[in-house]
């Protein structure tokens, strides 16, 4: 018994090693160019001497305003998805419908939305509504539905059935049951999940600009293209600060809610 177990372990290890070697063989190492060292050094120098002047420029297009735009994109995107995902959540919750097929289809839809990478959604929206913050908001709003609605539906599945049964007994209709028995029970959990998703969205919002969907990513990719390392340094610093600060505030709020 134990020998079989051992053998299996070694087989798994061997499998991982083989896969790893296969993956490494495909990647060309042209990456190690002669310039790499120089560039790395200048990046480090850029981090040591960030372009502080960029933090605030009176005529606009500065770090603070771009960071604010990033924050606003993620706030609006999270809000849009929090609204949009509620019908999806009820659709996917197993205790909200009598037929088993309905929540099954809902869950499948959500998992399809979840596997769609955000950046692809962003690019599609850029093609549709043009580059800018609006595409970013829509991308975050649509992509976040997948995760938020899944978490929401699991919360709805976990509610205490007592109040629902009481309302049914008094002859309440479906909407009244949702409004007075389900919603009051799930609101704190929903707010907490929404804040959690907001933390994820703020990270995504910093990258949306790389493809032109607004926010801090746009000046970053410009600075990278013209090799303005001091500016790259200050932008990355700004992003890290923004993420750390919003994470801190959001986790505080979440602890308060639950």
């Amino acid at each position, binding site marked *: 018994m134990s020998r079989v177990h051992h053998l299996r372990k070694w087989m798994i290890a061997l499998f991982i090693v083989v896969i790893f070697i296969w993956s490494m063989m495909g990647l060309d190492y*042209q990456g190690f160019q002669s310039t790499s060292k120089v560039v790395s050094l200048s990046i480090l120098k850029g981090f040591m001497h960030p372009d502080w002047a960029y933090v605030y420029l009176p005529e606009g297009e500065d770090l603070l305003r771009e960071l604010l735009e990033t924050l606003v994109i993620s706030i*609006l995107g999270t809000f849009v998805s929090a609204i949009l995902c509620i019908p999806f959540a009820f659709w996917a919750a197993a205790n909200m419908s009598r037929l088993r097929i309905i929540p099954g289809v809902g869950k499948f839809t959500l998992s399809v939305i979840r596997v769609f990478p955000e950046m692809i959604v962003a690019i599609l929206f850029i*093609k549709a509504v043009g580059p800018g913050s*609006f595409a970013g908001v829509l991308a975050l709003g649509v992509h976040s539905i997948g995760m938020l609605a899944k978490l929401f539906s699991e919360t709805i599945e976990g509610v205490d059935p007592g109040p629902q049964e009481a309302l049914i007994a008094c002859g309440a209709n479906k909407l009244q049951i949702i409004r007075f028995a389900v919603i009051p029970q799930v609101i704190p959990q929903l707010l907490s999940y929404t804040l959690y998703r907001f933390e994820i969205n703020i990270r995504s919002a*910093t990258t949306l600009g*790389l493809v032109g969907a607004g926010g801090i990513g746009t000046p970053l990719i410009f600075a990278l293209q013209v090799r303005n390392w001091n500016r790259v340094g200050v932008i990355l610093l700004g*992003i890290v600060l923004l*993420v750390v600060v919003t994470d801190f505030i959001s986790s505080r709020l979440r602890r308060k809610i639950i």
Partner: protein
Amino acid sequence: MRLDIKSTNSTSTPPIIPSSPNDSISVALDKPKRGKRIATWMLFIVILVICSLYIDVTPYQLFVGLPEMGVLLKEMFPPDWSYLPTIWAPTLQTIKIAVAGTILGAIPAIPAALFSANNITPYKSVSFPMRTLLNLVRTVPDLLFAAVFVAVFGIGPFAGMLALLFFSFGIIAKLTYETVEAIDPGPLEAMTAVGATRIQLIVFGVIPQALPAFISYLLYTFEINIRAATVLGFVGAGGIGLLLNQSLGLFRYDRAATIIILTLAVVLIIDNASTRIRRKLL
């Protein structure tokens, strides 16, 4: 209604006896709470309106933009299946980037996790900076890493692999050190009592306990990375994203649809397989 009153005032006022309902108290206590709730919602709505005005995002734009989206979706169908043979190689490259990035990131994550775990490294002066480093690495999204590495090492899959390496390192090390801190201290104490060295302690006491969780985190990170790898090409870091970007740039939406469908299929299959293995491991 009565439950509300109890929960909000149980600390400040003597509890109201439920058996003697007193409507005047109920109303008096309910009022400020409702006022506060309305104020919170109003504040929230004002913030939202300011936000949407600030970046000029209005429902009107959505109204104008949605038909455009419909046109785009219509052009995507039917997908151009003849494009499939061309995109096999980049898809494989995407998977390779994800595999290499995940495994190469997991290797340095092991010592990093051991140095961050308080029960293995009882020196705050070592574990604290290590944890700070991990926290910093995790604040930077993978695509930002990719954009920076493309600037350093040039366009190609190597930059993407490095980006995923750093990203995986941050996640795996964090999850693993939390697991290591939660392992059963019994075997460790027993080994310390018979005079095991620190290396022996790790090899025979920690690794057997933490290995299944570690592999599960490895797979979990791989799932994230395969998604990330599909879009790395947008910033020039190799993989299928480059072709997707090109097809969209040339307005070949039928080709873009083929790429997206293939990507989704790959992600779904890998997700499914990985979730199954993870469920078996834990």
